């Protein structure tokens, strides 16, 4: 592994990684001061696709902002939408029918699997293995087809409504979801044999950029990054929301703190999400998907409200400051990757550029979510 080296400042050069660089998965720039192959200093530069969602939130009414959330993290969009509808429902005291909550949880977990599959796949692609991504895309495609049949969109969903859902799931969806579970378990086995046990992959990832739990705390890292460093934190368990308390699932925690652990957390989470979907399909109650008296105009009383949800990237928080009007007074979106990537500058110093980029990939970033 890379040893800390004595850095001679006059022998360094600046390497501009990005904004258009294959490893940054979008437009994100890292200014690296290199000492040969070693990273001596890194500075992440954001904002290339900043769209000011928060100002849009202030200018639009509550229902009009629904579709913006899925434009944040387009891979695991439903969890973000979930957070948004939850905070507005909490603020205006809307009761959600149980069936709607169950369907939300099932679709969020399906979307989480899709996001993790793509996250892991593109991570492996960063390491040079292209075929695993293609295999994972096949499973992801199955989920997207399933969600498309229900929500009408493949990535940028606008499915949840304040109080419930846009439309109900049908038997075809349930049958396909049930068929998906054994299929995904089967392919997970394949991925473990193809990737997890592969010697090249293991050699690259084991010990690759260690993150201590203290560092995760200081930077506010959550999600898979924190769980790989031995922090047992999952908003679904620690701060249960929606109907998650009724599900029986585990939070995978690894203590190694390296990229291998971050990868393993994702793979283990796919299994846990499958368990949640299985239970959700079994328990799915009948009933309406919208409350009988859904308010036409959303006007939460003045005050401020906070809701955290666990997305595929970590803890997504949404702070709503309402002044009692049709528009939010302030809508703050706390995106998990923003905190997760902020520790990159410090953590990657002293490692080789290949390791730094592998570490970068293991953070599972989606740039529109960081830039908002």
């Amino acid at each position: 592994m890379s040893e800390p080296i004595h850095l001679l400042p006059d022998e360094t050069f600046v390497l501009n990684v990005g904004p258009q660089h294959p490893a940054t998965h979008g437009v994100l720039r890292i200014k690296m001061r290199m000492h040969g192959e070693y990273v001596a200093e890194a500075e992440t530069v954001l904002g290339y696709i900043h769209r000011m969602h928060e100002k849009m939130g202030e200018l639009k009414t509550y229902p009009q902002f629904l579709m913006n959330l899925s434009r944040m993290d387009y891979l695991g969009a439903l969890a973000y939408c979930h957070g948004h509808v939850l905070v507005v429902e909490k603020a205006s005291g809307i009761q959600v029918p149980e069936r709607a909550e169950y369907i939300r949880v099932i679709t969020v977990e399906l979307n989480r699997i899709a996001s993790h599959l793509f996250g892991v796949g593109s991570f492996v692609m960063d390491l040079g293995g292209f075929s695993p991504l293609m295999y994972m895309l096949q499973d992801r495609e199955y989920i997207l087809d399933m969600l498309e049949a229900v929500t009408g969109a493949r990535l940028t969903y606008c499915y949840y409504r304040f109080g419930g859902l846009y439309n109900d799931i049908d038997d075809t969806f349930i049958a396909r979801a049930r068929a998906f579970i054994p299929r995904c378990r089967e392919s997970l086995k394949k991925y473990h044999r193809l990737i997890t046990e592969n010697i090249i992959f293991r050699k690259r990832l084991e010990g690759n950029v260690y993150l201590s739990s203290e560092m995760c705390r200081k930077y506010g890292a959550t999600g898979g990054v924190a769980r790989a460093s031995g922090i047992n934190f999952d908003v679904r368990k620690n701060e249960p929301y929606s109907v998650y308390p009724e599900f029986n699932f585990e939070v995978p925690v690894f203590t190694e703190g390296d990229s291998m652990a971050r990868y393993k957390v994702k793979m283990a989470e796919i299994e846990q999400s499958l368990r949640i979907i299985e239970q959700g399909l079994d328990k799915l109650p009948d009933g309406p998907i919208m409350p009988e008296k859904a308010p036409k105009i959303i006007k939460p009383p003045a005050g401020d409200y906070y809701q955290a949800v666990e997305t595929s990237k970590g803890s997504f928080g949404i702070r709503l400051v309402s002044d009692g009007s049709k528009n939010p007074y302030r809508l703050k979106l706390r995106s998990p990757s923003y905190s997760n990537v902020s520790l990159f500058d410090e953590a990657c110093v002293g490692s080789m550029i290949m390791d730094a980029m592998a570490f970068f990939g293991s953070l599972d970033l989606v740039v529109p979510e960081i830039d908002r």
Partner: protein
Amino acid sequence: MIGYFQEIFTGLWSLFVGMSISFKEFFSPVVTVEYPYETVTMAPRFRGHIDLVPDENGATKCVLCMACERACPSGCITIEGEKKEGEKKKTLTLYQLDFTRCSLCGCCVEACNFEAIDFSKEYNLASTRKEDFYFDLLKRLQEKRQ
């Protein structure tokens, strides 16, 4: 010393396992759809851009309540109507959708109380000109009627 060789052998074995997997995949059938030559059928709930729904006469159901225009987050719907002589209600003369700004959220379809608009199943939309995406939905409806 044993560890040294063990590592080499387990490493080599994991490589052979990986190669056996890709070998199996090599002989599995192709799963992709060759898009321009074959297409998939869109799901019934697929949300394309909006379209005016004809009533039984093939005319529009729109009554110019402007609910969709107000509901649209991006302001991409423009509706114009005029009151013809001898008629009580306004008739629709222009329903323009600026698809360059539409985000397919469906707020307009939900806002409509008259079921006058619905999602189309169009997805083969590509053009090099921006103007091609200013859809005149009323014209589309009339073309459909013919």
